[in-house]
């Protein structure tokens, strides 16, 4: 079914183009219909493609579709080619299906926005480029998708253009990720000149024979690109601000898909990364630090979306730690489950925000349990999965998978992971308790429409049962997911001490939840966001924002202002005025007095005589 592969990308693209050409004249209802149909087809094709591929002749191999040659100069040759193997299949399913759900949800979320057409143009463009990113077999095409999702995220963060903060957040997001993109680009140059092609297989085959330094540099640069895209330390500052965009955007881009692109890229090139253990260690460390960093910051946020943003950061930290430990399956598995429950959480939060007059401060909410039971249960499901409550949630299994392999690499990583899990359960349930328990501090109006409820329900279910496709040996081993990916990512390594770790990993979240209950259980008075300096620093991204602002942004802009009209120009002006000066000085010879003139003639002659003799 090679023919379907391009169609999967073309569907959202076509929708985007149609909406673009309609120039916003299309009524909202028609727009939603079009989007629904387009993304529905996209998801449908995705599923069909997946089924046919897995039942196909070489379901362990890859399906190649070469579209056209991009550049063919001298020895360098790149082409637009799509490839479908089990890895990209997983990603493709996540993007298309969850994308479908989120866009359906968005139809009702953005119902009243006059610019809904523009919104869906961006969204569909995003889905298209994300699909290009995950499906293409050539790194240059990946880069196309990579930058495409970046610019779409910029456009969507700044979607409500009339508020300057949004514009700033959007610019920040793009510029910070652009740093990573530049690193990625340099990596591409390195590989292109070294290998002569940017095809994944070619690169992977050429890597072992290449000089080790070059490979290290390449992986380092790729890691940098991935880190920026996934908002890991030290390039994490953009993600919390990115919450300025509409909530579906946060759900789709900044939770489910775009931020995980880096994980996908590294997993895709794991063979190359295996050659450079140093870089992998660095990757693990980055993940390790980010887990704790983001969890700590999430602990004190007051804005519900920022809580989720930081939790996304720390969950991605888990994935990077897994990648660093070589647990490719674990990373991918967590990616999938995280896509389920984080999208769920965001959409639930979106429904809340929608119904409380775009209020996002959890301390201004409360007692929403009765007001919106459906949303409440959805949020509970998501939180449980995020906190990784044992056995009944998807998050539990994926996290355990990572922790086990982390333990096998270095117990320290495992410890960090456990600590992170502890914090996670605390902050997310802090959010739950404050938001849904206690007396109502705000009035929710309207009711969550069916169009929002259905995606919530589906994702809620997935968030609960989604984990059972990969159950560790200790409790009746199911290995559907890892078996699915093993042709691409290699066999699962043998694990030790599984049971004990599982036990600890199951208890810790429960402790966390109960602790959260003790701290924020509904009392007579409204809970207050505590406001100590330390807390304020934590809340403000551990002061990273301020640091970067002082160290990079301000000096750059200030010096630019200082030199705004270009000192080089001044130099030329100086030259001009000097010439003018000489002209005047020379004009002074013209005193108008004959005697002086005669004197000059005499001087000239005498000088000439001296010159001659």
């Amino acid at each position: 079914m090679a023919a379907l592969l391009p169609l999967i990308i073309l569907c959202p693209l076509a929708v985007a183009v149609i909406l673009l050409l309609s120039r916003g004249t299309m009524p909202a209802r028609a727009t939603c219909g079009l989007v629904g149909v387009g993304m529905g087809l996209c998801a449908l094709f995705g599923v069909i493609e997946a089924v046919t591929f897995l039942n196909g002749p070489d379901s362990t191999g890859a399906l190649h579709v070469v579209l056209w040659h991009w550049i063919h100069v001298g020895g360098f040759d790149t082409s637009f080619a799509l490839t479908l193997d089990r890895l990209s299949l997983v990603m493709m399913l996540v993007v298309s299906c969850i994308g479908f759900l989120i866009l359906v949800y968005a139809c009702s979320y953005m119902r009243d926005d006059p610019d809904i057409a523009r919104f869906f143009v961006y969204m569909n463009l995003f889905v298209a480029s994300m699909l290009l990113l995950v499906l293409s077999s050539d790194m240059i095409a990946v880069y196309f998708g990579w930058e495409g999702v970046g610019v779409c995220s910029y456009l969507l963060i700044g979607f409500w253009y009339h508020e300057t903060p949004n514009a700033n957040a959007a610019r920040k997001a793009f510029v910070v990720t652009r740093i990573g993109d530049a690193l990625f680009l340099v990596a591409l140059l390195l590989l292109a000149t070294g290998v002569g092609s940017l095809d994944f297989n070619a690169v992977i085959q050429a890597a072992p024979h290449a000089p080790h330094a070059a490979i290290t540099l390449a992986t380092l640069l790729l890691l940098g690109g991935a880190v920026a895209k996934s908002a890991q330390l030290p390039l994490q500052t953009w993600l919390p601000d990115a919450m300025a965009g509409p909530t579906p955007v946060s759900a789709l881009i900044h939770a489910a898909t775009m931020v995980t692109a880096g994980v996908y890229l590294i997993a895709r090139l794991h063979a190359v990364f295996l050659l450079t253990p140093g870089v992998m260690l660095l990757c693990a460390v980055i993940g390790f630090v980010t887990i704790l960093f983001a969890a700590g910051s999430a602990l004190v946020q007051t804005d519900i979306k920022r809580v989720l943003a930081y939790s996304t950061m720390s969950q991605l930290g888990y994935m990077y730690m897994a990648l660093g430990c070589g647990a490719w399956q674990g990373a991918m598995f967590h990616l999938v489950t995280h896509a389920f429950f984080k999208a769920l959480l965001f959409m639930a939060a979106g429904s809340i925000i929608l119904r409380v007059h775009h209020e996002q401060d959890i301390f201004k909410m409360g007692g929403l349990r009765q007001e919106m039971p459906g949303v409440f249960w959805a949020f509970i499901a998501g939180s449980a999965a995020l906190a990784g409550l044992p056995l009944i949630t998807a998050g539990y299994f994926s996290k355990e998978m990572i922790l086990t392999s982390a333990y096998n690499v270095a117990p320290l990583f495992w410890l960090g992971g456990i600590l992170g899990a502890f914090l996670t359960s605390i902050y997310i349930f802090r959010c739950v308790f404050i938001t849904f328990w206690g007396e109502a501090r705000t009035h929710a109006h309207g009711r969550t429409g069916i169009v929002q409820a259905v995606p919530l329900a589906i994702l809620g279910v997935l968030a609960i049962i989604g984990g059972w496709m990969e159950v560790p040996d200790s409790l009746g081993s199911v290995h559907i997911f890892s078996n699915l990916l093993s042709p691409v990512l290699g066999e699962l390594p043998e694990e030790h001490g599984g049971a004990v770790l599982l036990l600890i990993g199951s208890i810790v979240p429960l402790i966390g939840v109960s602790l959260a209950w003790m701290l924020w259980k509904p009392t007579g008075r409204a809970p207050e966001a505590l406001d100590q300096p330390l807390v304020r620093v934590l809340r403000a991204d551990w002061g990273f924002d301020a640091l970067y602002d002082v160290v990079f942004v301000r000096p750059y802009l200030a010096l630019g202002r200082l030199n705004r009209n270009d000192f080089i120009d001044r130099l030329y002006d100086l030259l001009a005025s000097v010439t003018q000066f000489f002209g005047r000085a020379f004009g002074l010879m013209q005193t108008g007095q004959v005697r002086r003139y005669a004197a000059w003639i005499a001087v000239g002659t005498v000088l000439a005589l001296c010159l001659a003799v």
Partner: protein
Amino acid sequence: MNPGDPIAAIAIASILFVIGLLGVMVRRNLLFMLISVEIMLNAAALAFIAAGARWHAADGQVMFLMIIAYAAAEAAVGLAIVLRMHAAGRGTLDADTGNRLKG
């Protein structure tokens, strides 16, 4: 001074020439300037005579006559111009004052 050796005469001529040049440079009175120019011309004429004497040729004398003629003509025109300026309203013969043309 033997006629074969013109150097002495050339020396005198040069001295005259320099005197004339200095005269032009130091005197402020127009008439004196013109006179100094005449001195320079005559210095040149003298040099021609000396040179002619050296080569026993008449060319020197020819040039001498021409220079005299030219000097006369120039003096005439110069005086005419001075008078004209006077008529045009320039009261003084001082060449330094009242210059209207300058850079």
